[in-house]
């Protein structure tokens, strides 16, 4: 098994006729993902190398049975596209788009959380890869192989870095889930860790956090209370100066709360081992899995 995306995924890509949209839609299809439709208003009836394009997400659901949407439209159209996907009955929405206004994210999040039949991952995330099954997003899938480590991360490239460190040591992944570093991510560490806990293929969970917000601290509480599988964590930003923005809106440090140190301590207090570097994190994971 795997979480969220897999062999049942029937993907529709919004913004498929854009350069990046086309590139990654085809990349995902090449990996084995069922890419059943694209959406670009006004281009309904066309196709992208055989993938039919529709004017609306509702049509993509109706005609092609799409159940997962990848949002690849520019930031100013992304909130609308996510809401359209929800209204069309899509059950998993993966928003890659970076730079969506925070208030848009807040409205979208608040609306979607009231619908128990939909999950949003992202925005500003690299997507989800279930090695050997399906890839939705921009994760360079060839670096990862199927296995028993579930990875969840706020940062895109850090996801690859850690996944790759594991792969180099011979480990594979059940799924790699990028949740994004935006102010209001659709899914939290907790949401994804709960899925890994329930996934029989996953034997160990790696979470990769960063400074800002309190998602890691909340995850620590959740893990202590609900998770039986081993969890290893990494936190980026120990040397980030307080009060400086580090690119991600998520990386604003305010006071002591939200520092890498505070997050590390919160996790370790709940028995989660925290690596000081991506390499050390991979080594910790290897040790635990080797001892089982």
């Amino acid at each position, binding site marked *: 098994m795997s979480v969220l995306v897999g062999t049942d995924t029937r993907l529709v890509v919004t913004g498929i006729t854009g350069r990046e949209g086309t590139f990654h839609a085809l990349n995902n299809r090449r990996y084995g993902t069922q890419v059943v439709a694209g959406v670009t208003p006004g281009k309904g009836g066309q196709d992208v190398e055989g993938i039919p394009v529709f004017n609306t997400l509702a049509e993509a659901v109706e005609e092609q049975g799409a159940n997962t949407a990848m949002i690849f439209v520019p930031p100013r159209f992304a909130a609308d596209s996510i809401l359209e996907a929800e209204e069309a009955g899509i059950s998993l929405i993966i928003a890659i788009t970076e730079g969506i206004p925070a208030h848009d994210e807040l409205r979208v999040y608040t609306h979607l959380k009231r619908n128990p039949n939909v999950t949003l991952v992202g925005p500003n995330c690299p997507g989800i890869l279930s090695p050997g099954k399906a890839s939705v997003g*921009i*994760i360079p899938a060839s670096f990862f192989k199927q296995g028993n480590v579930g990875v969840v991360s706020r940062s895109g490239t850090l996801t690859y870095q850690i996944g790759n460190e594991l792969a180099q040591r011979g480990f594979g992944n059940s799924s790699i889930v990028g949740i994004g570093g935006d102010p209001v991510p659709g899914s939290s560490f907790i949401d994804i860790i709960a899925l890994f806990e329930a996934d029989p293929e996953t034997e160990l969970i790696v979470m990769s956090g960063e400074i800002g917000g309190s998602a890691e601290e909340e995850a620590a509480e959740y893990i202590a209370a609900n998770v039986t599988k081993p969890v290893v964590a990494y936190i980026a930003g120990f040397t980030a100066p307080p009060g400086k923005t580090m690119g*991600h809106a998520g990386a604003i440090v305010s006071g002591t709360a939200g520092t890498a140190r505070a997050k590390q301590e919160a996790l370790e207090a709940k028995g989660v081992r925290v690596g000081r*570097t991506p390499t050390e994190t991979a080594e910790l994971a290897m040790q635990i899995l080797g001892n089982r």
Partner: protein
Amino acid sequence: MDLLEYQGKQLFARHAIPVPSGQPASTVEQAVAAADQIGYPCVVKAQVLIGGRGKAGGIRVAKDRAEAEQHARSILGMDIKGFTVHEVWIEEASQIAAEYYASIVFDRAAKAPLVMLSKEGGVEIEQVAEENPEALARLHVDPLLGFQDFHGRRLAFAAGIDADLIRPVGAMLAKLYAAFVAEEAMLVEVNPLIVTPERDVRALDAKVTLDDNSLYRHADNAALRDPSAEDAQEQMAHERGLTYVKLEGDIGILGNGAGLVMSTLDVVALAGGAPANFLDAGGGSKADAIVSAVEVILSDEKVKAVLFNIFGGITRCDEVAKGLIEAFDVVKPTVPFVVRLDGTNDVEGRRLLAEANLPNVHTATTMNEAAEKVVELAANAGAAA
């Protein structure tokens, strides 16, 4: 994006939030002319993006023209905690019967705006929150429902606001909320929110942080960015669309993705080095961006060595290699570079670099190895210098 006090007050005024009248000035002459127009006494306030202006002598009352000139002269150009004062705000003097505190924060943890109100304003609110948490009333607002009259009442009664001010303070919070939403702010803070002897409420200060991602639909706000407030390198990076933060060390850092760059800073620090900057070349970095990035990094004269840490996803390693080769051609750096390329098209990228045979460019295959190498090179350069 943080607004200066006076920019925040002008934004407030657009939403009918009462603020004292005033004028900005960036020269002593402008300041005196503004003071004459506003009348005396007036207040000369340093406009910098840092707290503690009052203690630093950056806020002074002028009872006449001579004082206005004297204060403007002393405050303009003043350094407050590392920030140079380029502008002052000349404001009518306010009569103060009481000082309250009000703010609205984009609360990421709760995923809702958090409205806060206290009767104990004019002081550091963190201290109030810590020493007397009851004195700081807090309430989350459902973002789709919006601020309701009852939110104002609950906060005002909970904060112990005087009976005659329950309604006006509630109305003020409603307007602040409207401004928070309409202007897409991450923070709106008024400290102090004053009560005048006539029992009117007014915003005597304004701290506003806007969402950079939303500026495309707020032309007024986008135009406010004050380049003089930024560091020279940061300004250069901003103009080139790069995310750059200047730090104190001597090792220039470039990576793709904020998380990876932060991690790189940590790994360099663990290896005993001191990063000179944070620079995220972003997803899908093209050769042009790499050239710009190298220029920005090297414009900091403290830099003794540079680390490129790339893990390719959307970013293609061959593009990064091409950019670096081009940058060497344009910028002709004199400091050593360590380059670690992994991920999409890494083999091709490494091949291009090897063929170009750039002077003083070292390669590494892992992040740890790269960090150790750059720290060593910087130390040697430091010793040589």
